[in-house]
């Protein structure tokens, strides 16, 4: 999204990057207490390479795609953490504005991963959304 910079998680160190994913730092503490295996490290490195290939420049967005958002006409639920340090909540607002049938849920006290940090709440929203669409 032009004018709303994402954070630069490519320059963050591993602990910083992990901590910045979560509002609730106790989750980060739990993950940091576990040493990843060699295989997990390999997967993380591979993911990092893939993510750089697509997300490095422009950082985390493709300026050509915004103009197509209006084509997503299906009912859509957008869930965004209010304290997302990777992609600011303005992104969620943009999606709500551009998608003809979108509803935005902003989750309070929540970072980049609402489904991890507030799983019960997010599950409830998904269920409600699903039932609303089905009926």
């Amino acid at each position, binding site marked *: 999204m032009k004018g709303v910079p994402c954070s630069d998680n*490519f320059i*963050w160190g591993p602990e910083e990057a992990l901590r910045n994913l979560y509002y609730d730092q106790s989750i980060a503490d739990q993950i940091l207490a576990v040493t990843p295996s060699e295989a997990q490290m390999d997967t993380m490195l591979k993911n990092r390479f893939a993510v750089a*290939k697509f997300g*490095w*420049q422009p950082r985390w967005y493709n300026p050509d795609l915004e103009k197509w958002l209006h084509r997503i006409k299906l009912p859509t639920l957008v869930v965004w953490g209010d304290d997302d340090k990777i992609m600011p909540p303005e992104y969620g607002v943009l999606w709500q504005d551009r998608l003809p049938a979108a509803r935005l849920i902003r989750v309070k006290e929540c970072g980049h991963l609402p489904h991890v940090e507030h799983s019960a709440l997010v599950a409830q929203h998904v269920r409600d959304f699903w039932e609303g669409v089905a009926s």
Partner: protein
Amino acid sequence: MKLVSFHLMPYRPLDLEEAAKHRSPWVVLPNRLYDPVKGAEEYARHIDALVYAEQLGFDAIGVNEHHQTAYGLMPAPNLIASALIQRTSRVQIAVLGRALPLVNNPIYIAEEFAMLDVMSKGRLIAGFVRGIGSEYHSSGTNPYFSHERFHEAHDLIVRAWTEPGPFAFHGDHFSLQYVNLWPRPYQSPHPPIWIPSQGSSETVAWASHPDRRYPFLVTFSSADLVARYHTTYREQARKYGYDAAGGQLGWACPIYVADTDERARAEGGRALETLFNDFLRQTFEMLMPPGYTSIGSMKNFISSRRALGGGRMTADGLIESGTALIGSPKTVLTGIERMREQTGFDILVALLQFGILSDELTRRNMDIFASEVMPHLRD
């Protein structure tokens, strides 16, 4: 032996204590810490020192490119090279080098180098580099495509220098309907191409290929590592079916000479420490953005770093490991000769100003190097 006097042009007035509060003196160091008035003086003094090297008998004087950092103030090294051409008449001018992947149209690099070559009547040495990891943060260039862009830009530049134009070039990263250089380079077929590197096996294999045989300069490494990279280059050349010449192997090294070892350490030690601890300080994420090296090389780097540990480097440690040559003329000469016996390298890129080393000490260092060391390196 070919002798190059090389400068990084660090910003010496930097408030080191203030700079230490930031993640790195690269990319994110607030530029309010740069004072253009002091900066003007810095450019003048650094250029004076390089010009003086011609008088002392060096074969070449060298500059290089780095971006958004107090470590080196030459984001556009060709501007400095152009000034050096006007103030010298004999020495070669080595730009070590331009970072090819960072530009969106490499023809501009081909053109600027051709201009410098013509302006200097064939005194240019053209260095090609990928730029260090931090440069991918500061330029926004995607590190994932760094190798591809380097190779493609190289091919385009060499073709632009050597093939009759106009012609069209269609690559994966650069596409041009018209390639038609005005001016063409002065040297035929083109200026010598050198490859400064911190030594990746991929780069060694590429530079030593019989189609290229580019001199490979190892920078900022311990003597053991320098010898290993030189040996790798020689072995690779042999695999290709030829013997590498000494002129294909270079060593870029901080050097400080004084009449005794003690004095050299006392005068040059602190400046050396600032180079490695203050000006070069970068995080792993800055040095190794994803894709800058293969996953395998990155894993090697991670494990070697874990083995090395963190902490400040000391002048003694840097001297012991042969990362820098600091001492009496005899000590410095021994260090050079020892490497020569091991690898037969024939290009010495001497960093005679480094870190916060003052103009006065730089000048004294250059004088003693020229009078006491240089004569012994002339074959």
